[in-house]
């Protein structure tokens, strides 16, 4: 046998219960994940092109009485799903950039440069890891309304979402631990070759840390994609809101058919992106578990 064995051995596979039981579980489970994963999306596709009356009176009818394709462009134009999705992308990418900037430079100091005061900063960052986010929800909101010292308000600017997401202890510590595993000989060799700190950071440490940078970037994007409460609080201006904040507000005022096509569009783009990049995506998410340990 060329491949590694699993829990079930070849001998097991010849037993009758396993021989018929295993494929049976396999089929049942497949139907389960198919219904759970694809079912709601197909239903949304159907409802997105149905009339309000069809959606309300016969939501489980396989074939709607008439197809209303114009719902889709209507939703795009009248509900402005495109603009909200754009905001979502801007928020996610900005959060990613600010997070990566802060945690790579910070980890570089704490792990590679190791100044005398480094352990104090590491300790202070580590301490926040044990405090749940809820403790700073209200004071963080007040900070955004009026930044201490600077005296400016970040409300209704994307900075209000980008910057707080960068202050994540988890990302800094993960990055630091990865930098710690880079052999010191490499760093010493670069020093002897006359590389300054900036050059060492950009040409040695960052290229060596591509995998972890990718995972942190992915997790940040997923996190910001799912966030609802924070953007709801700091982005009251509808023009700046991401799709998650805009959808419930829009849902209250639009008819059901248009609502469903808006939902369909909001779901379609991430699903397509996921299906295209599913390999990298699932690998990154899987790695995040190893980091948490």
């Amino acid at each position, binding site marked *: 046998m060329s491949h*590694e*064995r*699993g*829990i*079930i051995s070849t*001998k097991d596979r010849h037993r009758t219960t*396993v021989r018929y039981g295993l494929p049976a579980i396999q089929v049942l*489970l*497949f139907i389960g*994940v*198919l219904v*759970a*994963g694809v079912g*709601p999306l197909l239903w949304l596709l159907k409802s997105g092109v149905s009339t309000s009356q069809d959606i*309300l*009176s016969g*939501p489980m009818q396989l074939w709607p009485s008439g197809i209303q394709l114009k719902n889709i462009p209507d939703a795009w134009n009248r509900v402005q799903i495109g603009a909200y999705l754009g905001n*979502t992308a801007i928020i996610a990418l900005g959060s990613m950039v600010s997070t990566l*900037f802060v*945690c790579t*430079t*910070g980890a570089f*100091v704490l792990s590679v*440069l190791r*100044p005398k005061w480094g352990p104090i*900063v590491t300790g202070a960052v580590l301490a*926040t890891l*044990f*405090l*749940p986010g*809820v*403790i*700073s929800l*209200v004071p963080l909101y*007040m*900070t955004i309304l009026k*930044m201490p010292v600077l005296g400016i308000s970040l409300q209704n600017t994307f900075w209000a979402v980008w*910057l707080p997401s960068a202050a994540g202890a988890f990302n800094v510590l993960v990055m630091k631990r990865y930098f710690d595993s880079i052999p010191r000989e490499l760093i010493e060799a670069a020093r002897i070759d006359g590389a*300054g*700190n900036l050059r060492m950071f950009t040409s040695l440490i960052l290229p060596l840390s591509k995998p972890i940078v990718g995972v942190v970037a992915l997790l940040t994007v997923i996190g910001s994609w799912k966030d*609802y*409460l924070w953007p709801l609080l700091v982005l009251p201006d509808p023009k700046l809101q991401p*799709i998650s904040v805009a*959808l*419930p507000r829009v849902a209250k005022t639009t008819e059901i058919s248009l609502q*469903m096509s808006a*939902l369909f569009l*909001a779901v379609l783009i*991430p*699903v397509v992106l*996921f299906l295209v990049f*599913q390999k990298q*995506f*699932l690998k990154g*998410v*899987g790695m*995040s*578990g*190893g980091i*948490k340990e």
Partner: protein
Amino acid sequence: MFQTSAQSRIGTRSLTTWYRSGGLSAVLFAVPLVLTFLYFSWGPIVRGLVLSFQKNNLVTPAEWVGMANFSYVLTDPQLPQAALNTLYFAALALVFGFPVPLFLAVFVSELRTTGWLYNVLSYLPAVVPPVAAILLWTFFYDPSAAGVFNSILGWFGIGPFAWLNSQSLAMPAIVLEATWAGAGATSIIYLAALTGVRTELYEAAELDGAGIWSRIWHVTLPQIRGIIFIMMLLQLIGTFQVFTEPFLFTGGGPNNATTTILLLIYRYAFVNGDFGAATALSVLLAAVLCLLSIAYHFVTRRWSTT
């Protein structure tokens, strides 16, 4: 001010060596981290502790009120209900959401060629924006007989149920959606951990006469125990701070059956404008969660050493 020349020379020299050895650039590299943490992490935490002892509504100047916020929050008749609801949510989420991804991961790890298909399909719900998913499920939970779930159950002669309008069903309905949305991602993490399981032990266990189930129970699960505990703790901490689902599904109703602690904090701060009470409750919740993770840490450490 009146430094002797010798002293200042030493001062400049050590400053120069500090500069030459990269001291300044170390400070510059640390600036982004220290500034963002000061503004958005350390600062707000300290401010939150201070705020919980103050009366603050953002309009009139803040004033010290001692423990008044805490006593107000603790005697609020809504608190016991909200605490119970939060515990109920956490317990249900653990019962629904814990075994499903674990079973899925162990099963998929046994499939050699088609495993990826299960992963992609079960991860799909996690890709749907959570708010879109909640709006969609609100519609699925339509209480009329023509609602999506009610008509499916109707084929088997069950129902119709009031779902989100029912005091007893609202919370399980919310947890069901949360599990649907979260199971795929958790399963992927377990699956990654399962690739590190040493397979030669299966051989030994089989020779000792262990069946498939006891091999899973005694060989597979103990080896991924660490990640199982972490995921459990993260899930607990997450569910104790649940907001989006109850807020959007029911707004806390019906009759406060789904009001969670975080919903209460939100109401204090952003509906009543009482920021002192909101932070006092946040501090209390944070303290409970802190104790929980410390206790959890010690318990699991004792287990893993034995």
